């Protein structure tokens, strides 16, 4: 069976290759077609408009395989541009966190659409998403996908539902069902193989959940200090260690925060009144890969007062 390779950045920047079998990709595309391909009133999708790069699993499935399966046109534009929905009555909008910043400022492009299905994956949904959906009213359906390159689709929810429902071929592992709460652990036939290793049958994720039904869970956050910056997982403890090494006498913190453009981001605070220390942290920030850099480096209030 052929496999397709997808690379992720890894939580500290080291790339990881994930292999997904052709059968896994076909199965997942069919799941997505069932979830997104039609609407309750029978209005089928007539275009897929995407901001997601096709080199990533999510963009590959929704911007390449799903349009082929449904036989609908696909239109990809850069994330800074409004979706190209020309002529479509029921487009599927494949969004990234930044897409909602664009949608909020280009809603009139959707005036012609009788229905709009919006699909989002990869991170905490930006606060702007809900006013965008509200502005579209009954025409809009917002579907969120829970998953990653290594897991594929794990669960879904349709706004405004808060709990997640497992995909039909995914199950909780028995120990999580018994405990009712803890790290999300699942069995799935669509888990990726890492490099040349065989694909595992189950996986335990970084997400803390409560089981609320046989196939539903409530998400409480990520274990440890992981954030997803524009969908890329970043370990803030690793960032803090790098910056602290440059300023060993100061308390350096990485404070996560929601972001309208990236979904999540963080600010670095430095508890020091010494300008040389702040410059050292700035220099250390500049050595980080661009996507791992913080929104800002701030001196804490206590340090400013002293």
């Amino acid at each position, binding site marked *: 069976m052929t496999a397709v390779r997808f690379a992720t950045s890894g939580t500290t920047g080291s790339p990881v290759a994930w292999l997904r079998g052709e059968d896994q990709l076909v199965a997942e595309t069919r799941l997505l077609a069932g979830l997104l391909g039609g609407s309750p009133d029978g209005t089928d999708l007539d275009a897929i408009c995407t901001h997601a790069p096709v080199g990533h699993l999510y963009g590959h499935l929704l911007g390449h395989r799903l349009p082929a399966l449904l036989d609908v046109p696909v239109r990809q534009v850069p994330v800074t541009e409004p979706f190209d929905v020309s002529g479509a009555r029921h487009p599927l909008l494949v969004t990234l966190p*930044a897409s909602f910043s*664009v949608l909020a400022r*280009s809603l*009139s*492009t959707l005036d012609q659409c009788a229905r709009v299905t919006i699909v989002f994956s990869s991170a905490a949904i930006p606060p702007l998403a809900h006013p965008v959906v509200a502005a579209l009213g009954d025409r809009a359906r917002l579907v969120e996908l829970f998953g990653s390159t290594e897991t594929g689709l794990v669960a879904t929810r349709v706004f405004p539902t808060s709990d997640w429902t497992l995909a039909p071929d995914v199950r909780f592992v028995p120990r999580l069902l018994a405990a009712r709460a803890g790290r999300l652990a699942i069995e799935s036939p669509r888990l990726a193989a890492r490099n040349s290793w065989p694909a595992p049958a189950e996986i335990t994720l970084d997400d803390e959940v409560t089981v609320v039904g046989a196939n539903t869970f409530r998400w409480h956050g990520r274990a440890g200090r992981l954030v997803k910056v*524009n969908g890329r997982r970043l370990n803030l403890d690793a960032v803090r260690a790098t910056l602290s090494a440059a300023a060993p006498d100061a308390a350096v913190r990485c404070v996560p925060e929601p972001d309208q*453009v990236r979904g999540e981001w963080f600010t670095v605070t430095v508890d020091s009144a010494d300008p040389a220390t702040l410059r050292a942290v700035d220099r250390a920030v500049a050595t980080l890969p661009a996507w791992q850099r913080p929104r*800002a480096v701030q001196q804490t209030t206590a340090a400013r007062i002293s």
Partner: protein
Amino acid sequence: MGTEETREAVRAALSTLLGHELTEDTDETPLIEIDADRYDSLGVLDCVAAMEGRFGISIDLIDDDLVTNFRSVSTIGALVERKLHDARVLGLTP
């Protein structure tokens, strides 16, 4: 607010966004040449939100092309000036 004042305010807002001080000397320089890492596509959207927040204007991504209007301090300043002028004419000044 006059043109020069507007441009100064744009420069200050962008200095905060990019994390380093911009001066008049670089007003015409494409921002991507000043800081390609920070002024990527997401940085441009950060800038749009920052200008809306700072000046109380609305950027319409259908009418206001980002590539040309959000190229430099100078082009952003000109866009903001046009928006403020239109708001004054329409009696929408905050």
